[in-house]
């Protein structure tokens, strides 16, 4: 099990997406997943080893690191990627359910099981809302956990067994900050894409509905 699994899942989702949905998949693949695997992972690889405190007291470094990094940035990033990709599976499951129904009844119940209409439209809209919501939740979590998106060079720590307030130095703070901003930027881009897709679909289908009603009235 690795990122390849997620990549294959999302490729399957691509079939049933709108144009904006496909752009979203491309952004997630190229600018989030690939950047994570090829670059970001290595920056945070030895964060604990390279975290250095100005003290020889055993245990002080461990305790301070744990206090300032309850969940590492890179783990939050990975969780965000997984959570944000998962709602798309709802659409895949719904289409599979439709195809199953057609098989069971041995007749064509839908003009095209993969077309976004009726119940599948609702599922698609729910998946978009969930994706957007999860993106926002993770961004807020990042912000609250780390007091903004800045990573300081130095943190002051006075938790036992540290004998007094000691200076602890974080490794590669500038590089980490650059990639954190990159994460936030791509996250915001994905939120914008999801919201535009949502408004596009709602607009398109309201116009369709309105026109249908108008035609019925005329008849």
């Amino acid at each position, binding site marked *: 099990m690795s990122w390849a699994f997620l990549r294959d899942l999302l490729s399957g989702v691509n079939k049933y997406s709108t144009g904006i949905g*496909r752009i979203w998949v491309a952004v997630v693949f*190229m600018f989030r997943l690939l950047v994570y695997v090829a670059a970001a992972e290595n920056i945070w690889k030895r964060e604990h080893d390279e975290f250095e405190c*100005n003290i020889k007291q055993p245990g002080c470094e461990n305790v301070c690191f744990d206090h300032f990094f309850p969940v590492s940035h890179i783990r939050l990033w990975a969780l965000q990627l997984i959570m944000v990709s998962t709602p798309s599976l709802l659409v895949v499951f719904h289409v599979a359910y439709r195809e199953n129904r057609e098989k069971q009844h041995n007749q064509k119940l839908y003009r095209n099981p993969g077309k976004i209409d009726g119940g599948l439209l609702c599922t698609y809209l729910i998946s978009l809302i969930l994706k957007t919501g999860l993106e926002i939740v993770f961004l807020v979590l990042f912000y609250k956990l780390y007091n903004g998106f800045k990573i300081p060079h130095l943190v002051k720590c006075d938790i036992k067994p540290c004998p007094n307030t000691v200076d602890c130095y974080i490794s*590669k703070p500038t590089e980490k900050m650059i*990639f954190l901003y990159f994460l936030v930027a791509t996250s915001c881009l994905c939120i914008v894409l999801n919201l535009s897709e949502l408004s596009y679909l709602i607009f398109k289908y309201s116009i369709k509905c309105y026109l249908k009603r108008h035609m019925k009235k005329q008849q």
Partner: protein
Amino acid sequence: MDWGALHTILGGVNKHSTSIGKIWLTVLFIFRIMILVVAAEKVWGDEQDDFVCNTLQPGCRNVCYDHFFPISHIRLWALQLIFVSTPALLVAMHVAYRRHEKKRQFRKGDQKSEYKDIEEIRKQRFRIEGSLWWTYTSSIFFRLIFEAVFMYAFYFMYDGFRMPRLMKCNAWPCPNTVDCFVSRPTEKTVFTIFMIAVSSICILLNVAELGYLLTKFFLRRSKKAGNSKQQPNHENKEETKQNEMNELISDSCQNTVIGFSS
């Protein structure tokens, strides 16, 4: 998701690029991505561990390293490669959009006479003309921009392309100006110069491809203008060749889309 996946996605583009485009892709994969993964990552692997400062003051090494290397060479290269590979997807998306439109029209019944069934639309080759030509050309243009921007960022951040052996650092908490020694400076310089050289070659290839496309475009236009004056329905050899090239390019985009969506 890793460089292998990128190779699969861009491999579809390879079949149907111009010959210069194929050379560009080969250079990208063999001389940049492969070198990055197989060699360069190992050279920079121990960069912070072996960055040694002439002081025992805890934290001085971390701070000095961060000051001199705000973003590591290896990460900058990885980002450059990702950004430079992305414009090819624009073309793939455009072709997919065109195909979607044709399918929609077919279902409505506008083009039943042109195509027997929807499979034929899927396999149809689109000509590189009109908006698709603009997409292809702008993808090359964006590639050029990204390459140039990253090369400049490199030069700006590291004051040239040489890796010095020794750096003098007096950032707090270093007690005074301390000497800090970079690990493997010569090897890093060699690889930096190599990557910059290959980047320049890629820029030249992109410029050549752009020039080639523009030349073909203007030649085609002038031939069409000339033909419409003399014999409106005469299809000359030049146009047949151009059509073949366009079909090849559009086929690539079709396969990219299939590869991307499968």
